[in-house]
């Protein structure tokens, strides 16, 4: 007998801890949120403010029953928090020069140097390119979803991703000589 399947077979069950305390929610989800915020900011040390902001928003919405799946909602909140952090931007600009202080390979092992080089390369990307690169290649999101998160056109995501990837390559290649 012929079957007709629904697309519902292919998708997972949403995750929602309806009665979780703030601390429980934070413990469950902070690590990926912090990593994402750090990459979007281009600096791990300034990601925490955005993450606090994002969790404050998400938990409020969660308590009201408006969140089915914490993951995507938190991701959007992190992106918004990183982009909306006007005060952080001012701090970022003031300290921009500090962030570009060179780190020489003599004082670190190779892995640390490589990671530091990636952070420095990320910071050299324009903010728009950096966000697209992180969401596209770290979060592995489709172009349409990146466009939705960043509120830009899909064509912009395509071009920014290509340009960002090329820029990363160039920056890291120059570093490696």
């Amino acid at each position, binding site marked *: 007998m012929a079957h*007709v399947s*629904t697309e*519902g077979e292919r998708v997972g069950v949403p995750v929602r801890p309806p009665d979780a305390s703030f601390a429980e929610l934070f413990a469950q989800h902070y690590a990926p949120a912090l990593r994402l915020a750090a990459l979007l900011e281009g600096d791990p040390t300034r990601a925490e403010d955005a993450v606090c902001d994002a969790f404050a928003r998400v938990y409020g919405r969660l308590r009201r029953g408006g969140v089915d799946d914490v993951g995507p909602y938190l991701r959007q909140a992190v992106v918004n928090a990183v982009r*909306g952090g006007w005060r952080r931007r001012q701090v970022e600009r003031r300290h921009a020069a500090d962030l570009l202080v060179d780190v020489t390979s003599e004082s670190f092992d190779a892995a640390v140097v490589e990671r530091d080089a990636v952070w420095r390369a990320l910071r050299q990307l324009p903010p728009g390119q950096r966000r697209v690169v992180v969401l596209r290649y770290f979060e592995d999101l489709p172009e349409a979803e990146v466009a939705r998160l960043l509120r830009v056109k899909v064509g912009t995501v395509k071009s*920014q991703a290509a*340009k960002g*990837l090329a820029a990363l390559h160039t920056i890291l290649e120059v570093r490696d000589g």
Partner: protein
Amino acid sequence: MDERQAHELLTKAADEVVASAGLSERAERRYQRRRARSQMVATAVVVVLVGSGIATAAVVAGNRSSPRPVSPTPTTRPRVSLTVNTKTFGSLAFVNDATGYGVAATTSGQTVLAKTDDGARTWHALAVMPARTYAVTLAPPAVKLALWGPGGVWATNDDGTHVREILRGDVAGFLSSAQRMWATTRCGRGQRCSEELVASDDGGRTWTRAIPWPAYVDAVAVSPKSAKAAYVVELPVGSSGSPEIAYTANGATWTREPTPCPSSAGSQLAVGGDGVSLMLVCSVSARDRVFVSGNRGRTWTETVALPSNGRVSALSSYDGADSAFVVGLTATVRPGWANGPLTYPTLDQWAYKDRPQPIGDVRAFAFAPGAVMYFAASTGVWYDHDGVRLLRTAGASRANAVDPHEVQTVSFVSARVGFGLATGAETGIFVRTDDGGKTWVQVGSLFGITALHFERAVDGVAWGQNEFEVTIDGGNHWSTPRGAPVNQVLTWAAGRLWAISFCDQNPACAVSRPAFVSDDVGRTWRKTAPVTPGLEDVAIVATSRSTAYVAGTSPRTNRSQLAVTTDGGASWRYEPTPCGTLDSNLAHNDRVLLLVCTQGQTASQEFSVYTSADRGRTWTASGTDPFVGGYFGTLTNVGSTFVAAMQRGEIWSSSDGKTWRRETEVGEGFWSVSTVPGVGAFAADGDDSDNPNSGLWFSADGARWAHRP
């Protein structure tokens, strides 16, 4: 560096990120501060509502349904209001032309039993079902509604409030007549054994074997003429031989006849309204073959061939007709079957209506009394109301009130009537307001849609990546016209829509990109002269039916350029712009063209702003970045005033594009601004109901904005 290498590098870097001590407490303190602030605001709102009518508050509060646990067993109401994705229906069953049921996925992924009470215009989820629930069927009165899948058969007679299992096992198929239910069950995965056909006449309390001999049941169809009359297609027990069709008039004695099908499984069978006419679809390797019989399967005639790129995915007899059938096809070549259901016979041919829009792969049929045919396709649920018109339903959850804070994209047609897209627990919620944005009600759901524009209260368009939809009835129904541009940016002026497809890293893009205009709100489109070359990061603005500007980055030069037409797109003039290679935004008031480049003239600038008083031939820089620290949202004009709505919750306005006035603390970050000539503009952020400034804002002049709480 390729994408994989980039992912590995970023992952390595991210792995070193650790939280500092006390971060959780810091975050919770921030939440408590936000909560305290929002409670103060809520108190103020309640005081206002007491004076203006508490009913509004009750409606809005009612939309936030109390959480209920989701269970993997099909016995629960959905915990929250779930949006049914009408593009995923795999089964439909209609009680009458208004009330029907279906099995579909929600936008958040659950498989649900869904119901409509308005002729498939809106759908709401009744019960969360196991993921592999295939179909819903109208069943005898004791059962009312039966659902089935590989896990068994479930019944509900109270619209999903209680769902009970009536048959457990690996159910391969299920059918029901007015008195009897039939099911085929498999003995177990990987076991060599026959499939059983079982039947129940007591609402599923007891099941008895319906065929007394071992059989591999491939298809079953029940006759509308008799409660116990049924046809069964059996595969041969051995490796050779052909399938046979067995018929019973009384459920006890059977006659068997050969069929013209090959021995492979996958046949489909339907019985005509006369109880003796049959249509048999045989699954063969290259193309499904279809046979008809007018004498209960004693002799068969092959129909003319089906189109070569479609396989039969749904089969039904035409309600009320003795020997007419309808099949739904799934295309073997993407993007999908375009022409909708095929009916037979029409002068011994397959026939389909010349639809004005592609239908997509057809998955299921359901007939309501009066020969109203509904069918589920990959583009949504459609109905053929009067044999002429074919409409796709909007597919809403219940017509709930929607929190105004969640409306993030708006298009107003007057001071009171507007449409929008809302977010929240689900995506793609299409809403309408009739009171200037104070209250919003869900009209339907639109999937993959990120923007919309309504020209009048009935005529509108909505679009997103690879999506373009048109409505002519205020968003109750939507369709995708053939030839509509996709992957486009749109603008409008004086009743004309302009669209240009943006480049998709497509080599053809370096040559040219077509542009389109529509004078009937998106129903038909006409190509204009192409923009040569095509542009990346496109922005477009039209100022009249004849004049439009397109800005973007040329893939040839990697520099920004402006294409200008003043003859309705018959020709384009090209000018360089002072922008770099990044995204740009365009607006035009009654005097100057405004260009905002999302990269400043210096490294410390985020934006640079230019104006042109000669249609893009020469540009004047406006000086330093006026939007310092912002992130661009929307650029438009309200009469002679330019408006830049920023993502961080500011709206800037300027009459000349050079000096800008900032309105602060207006929302969290704007998604859209909708201007209504002679009325003003509405700006929506749809970001966060905790923020007292979040929501809809209105301005009569573009400069001074007032919150519409």
